[in-house]
């Protein structure tokens, strides 16, 4: 063990740095999905589409505003604005027009409504943005790189991935925890997550909470997409792979648990990058192995509690 660390300790350090950025993105997408699931009890497959649409919008907006002219903070602002816009428009639209009609239905119908929506949005993205990879990396380039010493060598990392992404993820985490603990709207969300009926009985309008939560989830999905767009080319099909990973996070985290999503995202992000270094063939399996392992030990997920179920 000690000898292994002497040989590979530095590499492991690099792997952890890489894992942070990827964990940050996973967290941003999954936390929104988990929040929505916690309150609405609907597993929103179209969450992946919102991620993709956020990414497309951010890249499109970034390109339209022109690169280079904007300072780094403004470029980042544009991305966040784009995400907020997409989530704030699409979230209420989807919740009001579609989900609202099916809250009383069996969960398979709810799942399929979002599946149908996901299928439709896949083609809508194609019709709007075409099929060529869309990319706008001004935000990544403007932050420059940061050299990490590595023995006698050094490894350049992008400051965007090393600091900005994890920084935003931490801000979102802290902000969400604060919001849910310390504001009335947040406490109403927690109350509905815990027990919708009891919450209704004390006067909470669950419909409004649903709308608010779904919109927040949509904004978070789009934000994840927007923040991913400077580092990754956006192509058709990106929503499908995003959503499966987020599902794994939700089930592992425990329903509706913010801190669970953070911890799971961190485990998956770090696990995958460590795998790339030491067992590259296992990389794709990591999220699922973590999920199966956690559920074997804790059937309700990391932070999950047994639910009371009403007939």
């Amino acid at each position: 063990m000690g000898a292994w660390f002497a040989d590979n300790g530095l590499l492991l350090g690099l792997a952890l740095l890489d894992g942070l950025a990827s964990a940050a993105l996973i967290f941003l997408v999954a936390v929104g999905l988990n929040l929505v699931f916690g309150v609405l009890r609907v597993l929103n497959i179209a969450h992946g589409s919102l991620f993709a649409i956020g990414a497309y919008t951010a890249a499109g907006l970034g390109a339209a505003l022109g690169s280079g002219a904007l300072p780094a903070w403004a470029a980042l602002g544009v991305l966040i604005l784009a995400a907020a816009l997409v989530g704030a428009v699409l979230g209420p639209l989807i919740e009001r027009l579609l989900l609202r009609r099916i809250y009383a239905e069996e969960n398979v119908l709810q799942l399929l409504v979002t599946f149908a929506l996901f299928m439709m949005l896949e083609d809508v993205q194609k019709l709007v943005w075409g099929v060529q990879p869309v990319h706008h990396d001004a935000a990544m380039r403007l932050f420059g790189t940061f050299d990490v010493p590595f023995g006698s060598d050094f490894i350049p990392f992008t400051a965007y991935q090393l600091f900005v992404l994890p920084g935003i993820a931490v801000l979102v985490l802290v902000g969400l925890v604060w919001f849910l603990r310390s504001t009335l709207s947040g406490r109403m969300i927690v109350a509905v997550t815990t027990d919708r009926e009891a919450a209704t009985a004390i006067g909470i309008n669950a419909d409004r909470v649903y709308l608010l939560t779904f919109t927040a989830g949509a904004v978070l999905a789009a934000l994840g997409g927007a923040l991913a767009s400077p580092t990754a080319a956006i192509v058709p099909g990106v929503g499908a792979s995003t959503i499966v990973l987020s599902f794994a996070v939700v089930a592992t985290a425990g329903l509706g648990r913010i801190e669970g999503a953070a911890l799971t995202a961190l485990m998956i992000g770090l696990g995958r990058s460590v795998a790339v270094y030491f067992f590259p063939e296992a990389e794709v399996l990591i999220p699922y192995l973590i999920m199966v392992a956690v559920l074997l030990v804790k059937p309700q997920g990391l932070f999950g509690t047994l639910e009371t179920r009403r007939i």
Partner: protein
Amino acid sequence: MLRLEDVQVSIAGAPVLRGVRMYVPPGGRVALIGRNGAGKTTTFRAIMGLLPIEGGRILLAGADASGIAAHERARHGIGYAPEERRLFGGFTVEENIRLPAEVLRLPAVETRRRLEQVYSLLPELSGLATRKAAGLSGGQGKMVALGRALMVGTRAVLLDEPFQGLAPALAQRYAEALKRLRDALPDVAILISESNPELLRPLVDRSFVIERGEVSS
């Protein structure tokens, strides 16, 4: 205060309430007696608007409840303590009790007045104020649920099987709290459900018996 006229409710296609008729006068203390599965909880949930009713009607202070959304019923002064206590486990006891007042956006003065009222009626709660609700014992939880219901229940409180699962000593304390309640808040109607009619006899003015979804008095 509360009137049920021929109320019919089905769950998953099976009729659970068949023409329930009941009346709780303002300030009245009424018991709903019935065995497990007779329809007590369903009656309470129907009153709270948590289940759709298929026939008949429910009147809240004379107004047809069908026009009052479930979450609006708290604003109409009806508090509800469900069978299992159903607290918000992540919040402290005081947060649980305060939340209804915050949701209704009561003025700070009014909130404080009601909170003090709850603490004076249920003195054991003051010692628990900062505890997390998830860590409470069953009896403590029932007490908190009652306190929470009282925060909004200015006209009526519905208590679903409050004595269920309580040790005799605790049940005694709960019954005493209810007596204090009766004296301190004479205008608040109370509807309590219970499977054992003996327990409630000293507490109520009137009893309804529910059996297989039908009520007789």
